[in-house]
């Protein structure tokens, strides 16, 4: 088994999953923010002055989220690559027979552990601002992304297990 290539593959696939996760979340946020703010604008502005501000607000919102999303994607490349390599190692350690059901369990535990590590890092940086004391901030920056991260790690684990079986 060529472990170097597999480590690289795991890192590459992990990075791809992470970027896709960031983009998917960003698109949901983008459309939610545009729709919600547009509803506000629609209710306030007279019809003759509405279209300019609706377009300007919508595209500014979309552009801002896109820029944030690209910045987050750069960070997530590293996080995804590390997660991919860790996932590969734990799958080989705890599931050497490469059972499909066990792969889901191991991936889920790895995802929970990594989410916990991520939370600790965020807590060190942001303290009480990343707790339910600031519910919107906590949900937006940690809880929802953690759910996407969990799904991506489990999906990645299933795929990685199949790749390892194929060797």
């Amino acid at each position: 088994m060529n472990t170097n290539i597999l480590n690289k593959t795991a890192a590459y696939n992990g990075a791809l999953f992470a970027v896709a996760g960031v983009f998917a979340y960003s698109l949901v946020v983008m459309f939610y923010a545009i729709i919600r703010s547009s509803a506000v604008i629609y209710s306030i502005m007279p019809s003759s002055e509405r279209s300019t501000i609706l377009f300007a607000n919508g595209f500014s919102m979309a552009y801002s989220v896109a820029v944030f999303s690209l910045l987050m994607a750069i960070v997530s490349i590293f996080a995804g690559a590390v997660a991919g390599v860790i996932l590969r190692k734990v799958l080989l350690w705890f599931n050497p027979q490469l059972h499909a059901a066990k792969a889901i369990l191991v991936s889920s535990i790895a995802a929970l552990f990594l989410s916990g590590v991520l939370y600790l890092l965020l807590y060190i940086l942001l303290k009480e601002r990343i707790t339910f004391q600031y519910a919107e901030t906590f949900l937006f920056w940690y809880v929802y992304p953690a759910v996407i991260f969990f799904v991506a790690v489990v999906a990645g684990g299933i795929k990685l297990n199949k790749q390892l079986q194929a060797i």
Partner: protein
Amino acid sequence: MKQVKRFIKYTLLFYAVIALVYWVFIRPVHISWGATAAEQQMKMPADELITSNRIVSTRAINIKAPKEKIWPWIAQTGQNRGGFNSYYWLENLFAANMHNADTIVPQWQNPLPGDTVYYGEGEGYELISFVKPNGYYSLGGWTLYLDSIDADKARLIVRYPSMEVKQNWLMKMYYSGLFEPLHFIMESGMMMGIKQKAERNKMDDYEYKYFK
């Protein structure tokens, strides 16, 4: 993995289109949204604080209310006062702990030069630089100016100078690439929020609830 790669590729393409539309069509409009050429050129109280290496925007909105009805909402601006009348749900994604007051609060009706106004809880703040009841309110170089159209209508004109960016390409990139569109969203939201509250007795409760 092909589907994942395709999704990333099309998202990047989508972002590129958004950026193109923003820079070609939207940015030139939002920098002076609603403001006439005369309003963009007019002198404002805090202009003396605006140095030449800043990017300046001037925006304006019609409000169907006299200045005296608009002023109380401007007077209580600030996170540590009555909020910014903008999209609080966006501000709170960044731990601003923003709450927009839905009533006029008497103890916040006498802003004075030198008073501290917070943008978010424990975050950046600015001092009130110039203030004239029913006339203008400036936080540093950022001015909210009221101009009467007639007895029942007024213009709210808002001038905002960026941080000093013109001589620093990194700051300029940060300002133009991210801060400026976000500031436009929040500032236009604030202007519409003030308009909504000042005109409130002419609108029904269903419309009002969005900015509560």
